[in-house]
Structure formats: C-alpha cells, structure tokens
C-alpha cells in the first residue's frame, strides 16, 4: 500500500479506532474495579435507544443530539437499575438484565418503525459499526495533512471521538484521586466529604459518552470488548492502579491497530481478496490479549 492510499483509506479508521479503544478502556478500568463491568454492557446496549430517540426528536443524525440522547439513555438505565435493585430488592445483575434488554428492544422497535431510509442508521450498523467506511476521500497523500481543503473533508466522526477522548483523559487526570479513593473505599470517601454518588454517576456518563463516540467505529456490542478486555487484561499485569491504567491504554491501542490491520490484510494471506469486519477483528484481538494475560500475566492470581 502506498502513502496516498494509506492516508486516504487507513489513516482515519486507524485513528478513530485507536481513539475509540482508548476512550472506552480508560473508564473501563474503574468499571472493572468497581465490579460494574456489566454496567458497560448495559450502557453499550442502551446507546442504541438513545440514538434512535435523538433521531426521532431531531430528524437528523448529528453529533450533539446523539451524544445527549445516549448520555440520557445511559443515565435513565443506571437510575432504573439502581431503583430496581434498591426498591425492588433485586440483585444487580438481574436488574441490569431487565433494564438493558427492555431498552434495547424499545430501540430496535422504534428503529424498525421509523423511516430511517434517508440517513445512515440501521440495526446492523448499530450493532457492529463500520470502521472501514470512515475514510478520508479528500486525501491524496501525507501532504494532505497540511492542506486545509483536504482537512475539511476529514470524517466528522474523527472530531467527535477526539473530543470525547480528550474529555475522558482530562477527566481522569483531574479526578484521579477521588476516583481512586471512592473506588477502593466508598465509606471512607464519604467521610472525606467526597460526592461518591456523583463520582459513580460521572464514571457512567463518561462511559456512555465514550460508548456513543465509539459507536460509529465499532458498534454497540464490540464497545463492551473495549470497556472490559483491555482493563481486565491490564489488571492481570500489575498491582498498581496507575500502571494498570497505562497497560489498559497500551492494550487498547494494540487491539485497535492490530485488529484493523489484520482485518484488512489478514484475509489476503489466505488468498482471499475480501476484508473481514475490522470492528469484529478489533474485539477479537482484545479477547486474545485478555486470554494471553490470563495465561501468562504476572499478576494473574
């Protein structure tokens, strides 16, 4: 592949995939440590109804309504789960199962019922994304990176995911101490005057934003692989929180880059001309990384 082709067809999907993996893996660390890994599962499932709702209200698929709709759906889901758990005295796993399946079903139904023929929104796209389509047609080579006209043609998804990744990284850096303390010892955190509820909700909102921004790239289910596999693998590598978060970022990037590359060129090694799903391959690589960490990670036991 020459430089021009690489910039036009691989650079932006690679960037978007990497940023998406990073944006999900970072809050994922705290979900895993809080035994809320499946909140990531629930959130990623309710992104779909959130986006459908935003579409039904605004009639378009644009960034801000989508982000708002998904964040709102995630908050509704978490509040419902908490209400069912607390007032219905139902264990959290079952409460999650009730809420996210019902909301997902509502999303699918609304999607089938509404006329989305004019926009790029269908169930399959929502489920496993389309990383390969996020290309930069205006690019003619590396020099396009300095060409304002070509830069204007960058896929909007790139800006969206950059923004969210930046926000996630900044939030993590600023709130590192409260996040660590309240994740380790919530009771103690309360006596320090930390708003533990708001912190918990903040993690959920950050995850929801990451999920919706990553949605275009990898779809709503493979997002779970990004939330859980890199942090879980990272946990098996180290016994220090900071190091774990760093490992999770490394694993996320490896999964994104390796997955995209394998999806594009892997089939050629078997004599097939057709590429396979890049999103699927990213999730698969993330799973393989976790399997390796579970077998050989220095802190696995």
């Amino acid at each position, binding site marked *: 592949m020459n430089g021009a082709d690489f910039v036009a067809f691989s650079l932006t999907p690679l960037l978007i995939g990497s940023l998406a993996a990073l944006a999900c893996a970072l809050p994922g660390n705290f979900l895993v440590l809080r035994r809320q890994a499946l909140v990531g599962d629930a959130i990623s499932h309710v992104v779909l109804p959130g986006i459908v709702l935003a579409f039904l209200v605004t009639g378009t698929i644009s960034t801000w309504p989508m982000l708002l709709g998904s964040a709102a759906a995630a908050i509704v889901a978490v509040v419902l789960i908490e209400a069912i758990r607390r007032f219905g005295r139902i264990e959290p796993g079952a409460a999650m199962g009730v809420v996210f399946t019902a909301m997902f079903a509502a999303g*699918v139904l609304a999607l089938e*019922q509404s006329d989305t023929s004019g926009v790029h929104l269908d169930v399959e796209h929502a489920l496993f994304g389309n990383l390969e389509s996020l290309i930069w047609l205006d690019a003619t080579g590396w020099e396009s990176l300095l060409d304002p006209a070509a830069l204007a043609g960058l896929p909007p998804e790139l800006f969206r995911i950059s923004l969210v990744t930046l926000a996630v990284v900044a939030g993590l850096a600023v709130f590192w101490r409260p996040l660590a303390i309240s994740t380790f010892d919530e009771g103690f955190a309360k006596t320090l005057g930390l708003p533990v509820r708001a912190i918990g909700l903040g993690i959920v909102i950050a995850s929801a934003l990451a999920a919706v921004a990553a949605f275009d790239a990898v779809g709503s*289910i493979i997002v*779970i692989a990004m939330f*859980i596999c890199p942090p879980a693998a990272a946990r098996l590598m180290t016994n220090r929180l900071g190091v774990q978060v760093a490992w999770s970022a490394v694993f996320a990037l490896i999964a994104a880059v390796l997955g995209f590359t394998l999806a594009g060129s892997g089939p050629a090694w078997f004599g097939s001309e057709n590429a396979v799903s890049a999103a*699927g391959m990213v999730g698969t690589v993330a799973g393989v990384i976790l399997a390796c960490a579970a077998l050989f990670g220095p802190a696995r036991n």
Partner: protein
Amino acid sequence: MLRDALTFQLGYNATLVTVAAVLLGIAAGVTGTFLFLRKRALVSDAIAHATLPGIGLAFIMLTLSGHDGRYLPGLLAGSALTAMSGLFAVQWLSSRTRLSEDAAIGAVLSAYFSFGIVLLTVIQTMSTGQQAGLESFLLGSTAGMLLTDAILIALGGLLVVALVFLFRRPMSLVSFDPGFASTSGVRLDRIDLTMMGLVLAVTVVGLKVVGLILVVALLIIPPVTARFWTNRVELVVLLAGAFGGIAAWLGAGLSASAPDLPTGPLIVLVSFCIFAISMAFAPRRGLLSSLVRHRRFQTGVHIRQGLLAMAQGQPIYEPLTIRLLRGRGLARADGMPTREGTVRAARALRDEKRWEIARATPELELAAARYDGRTQIEDVLTADQIAEIDRRIGPPEAVQ
C-alpha cells in the same frame, strides 16, 4: 387482527410460530428462575453472545461439506458448542484468575461476539450464491420461518420444561440454600451444570425467535417479575413460567397483527410491561406498598421517639418529630406535651419498659425479637404474660 392473532386464527404457520414462542417463553421463565435465584442471571448473556461464532462456524462447515448452510438443527448444534465453550471460559476466568465473574462475563461475551462478527463477514464473501441471512439470529426473525423450524422450537421448549420438572427438587434446593444442599448430599457442581445446560438449551432454541441479544430477557425478566409476588420458590417458578408464556403469546400475537413489528423486541417489551406493573403494584414487595409501609414506619418511629422523650422530660430536637406530634394533637408548637400527649407518653414509656423486660426474659425472647420501634407489646404477648411483666416492673408510679 390482534384478536385473530391471539386466538390463533391467522393461519397454520403463524399459529405454530405463536405456539412455539409460548412454549419457549414458559421454558425460559422456568429455567431463568433458578439462574436468577443463584444470582447468576447475566451468565446467560455470555452464553447467548457466545452462540454467534458457533452459528458462523456451523454455516461454513455445512456449506463446505456441500450441504445447505441454513440447516437450522446444524446451526443450533454449532451455536450450542461455542456457547458451552464460552460458559467454560467464564468459569475458568473467574475461578483461575483474580478477575471477578462480571468482568469475565463481559470479556467473554464481547470477545466471542466480535469473533462471530468476523465470521459473518467471512461468510458474506464466500461465493455460495445464496444469502446466508445469518443476521436474523441477532434479533430473531419469525417471518418466513419454516414449519419444521417452528416444530423444532416447540419441541425444544417442551423438552426443557420436562427436564426442569424432572430436576426441580435438587435445583430448588441448590438455588435456595447452596450450603445446605451440598451438606445434604446434592452434588452442587452437577446441579449447576444441569442448570447451565438448560439455560444453554433455552438460549439456542430461542435464537431464531428473539435473537441472541434479547434472549436473555426471556430468562431474566419473568423470574424477576414473579419474585415480586411471592417468596416461595415453587411459586416463583410457576409464575415465571406463566409470565414468560403470556409475554410470548401477547408479543407474538402483536407482531403478527401488523407488518414491521419484530417479534423478539415485542415479546421483551410485553414482558417488561408485566414487570413494571408488578414492581409498582405487587402487594408486600411492590414499590407502592413498600413506600406506604416505609412512610408509616418512619412516622411511627418518630412519634414513638418523641413520646419517649416527652415522658422522660427530654427536649425533642427533630423538627419532623415535633410536626408529627403536633399533627396528632400530642404536642404544642414548643415541643411540650398536651394533656393527651402526656397520657400517651406515659403509656409509651411503660410499653418500652415492658419490652425491655421481655427481651431479658429467655422464654419471651422470640416474641421480643418482633420489636420494631412502634409495635405495641399488647399485639405480641398475651394478657397473662404482660401481667407477669408488670409484676416485675413494679407499681405504675415507678414510671414517671
């Protein structure tokens, strides 16, 4: 149209699909109850998502060996195999590494699903000259279901129900009290494996109707719904089966009554509606009755505390307590007791003293455990017992 659908008037195929869905709903509700009571509801989510690569692999192998890739029994067998390996992967990760079960579930479901998507795109590019249509396993599709498929699903549902009936005793025991079950000779791991096997069977059978993403709803929502109505395991099982069946019947009927109404999501939404109604209005465990009871309890405790403070001449600090006492004409605005308040306060103090004695009396200890800060002792003990207590407290003037 809806009435036709619900009363099986929409033709042979639609009727059979509905019957299959209802049997599936019952089987899922019944099986899911044990899973739910074992607090492992979401293991089913990992199982369900882990079916996808199996479907893909089965299709590829069927096609490569010259058969029709869409042969349902073959696809279901393949899905069962990878689902099983997914289940073992969850168990291995959570028992052999420091990862908790929820992380293991999330990791397995997403990794297997991702690999399944890769296989689906491989299949799309295979030059078999036919549309594989495997995407229908994601969200289910009853449109154009073959008669043999519907029969397969119905029989599968029946088989699961029969197996649950067969194993109901050890499974109830294990889900109610695993510790006791294992000491009374039940092999915990075997029963757990049976339970998971049944969950797996329901998942595989349900793939075609509701799809792998939503099939967990059939396993989880009806048991949670049933739990609001009763505390008895056998009744939860029966009710969950009934709710699952009703949801499937209504959902399938609604879906058949108009175009563009997918069956799976409708069954799930009907199920959720039954859940929401139950959670809101069920007696005892429902939201409304809990709320009323909590308010009443809080009021009772505040009044009791206020009366005791008044009886002992202590100031009342809580504004809510004073407000409640005033509202009942027991105290004035400054927190001082009214005439009736004085009488009631003395009575409350006496009641409190009686409870105290009851607690220290071994033979009354059980009854005394019913103390909750507002129940009168007269409601718990007999007049003779109270007379005995009063004798030990001494003459009434000891109570000021």
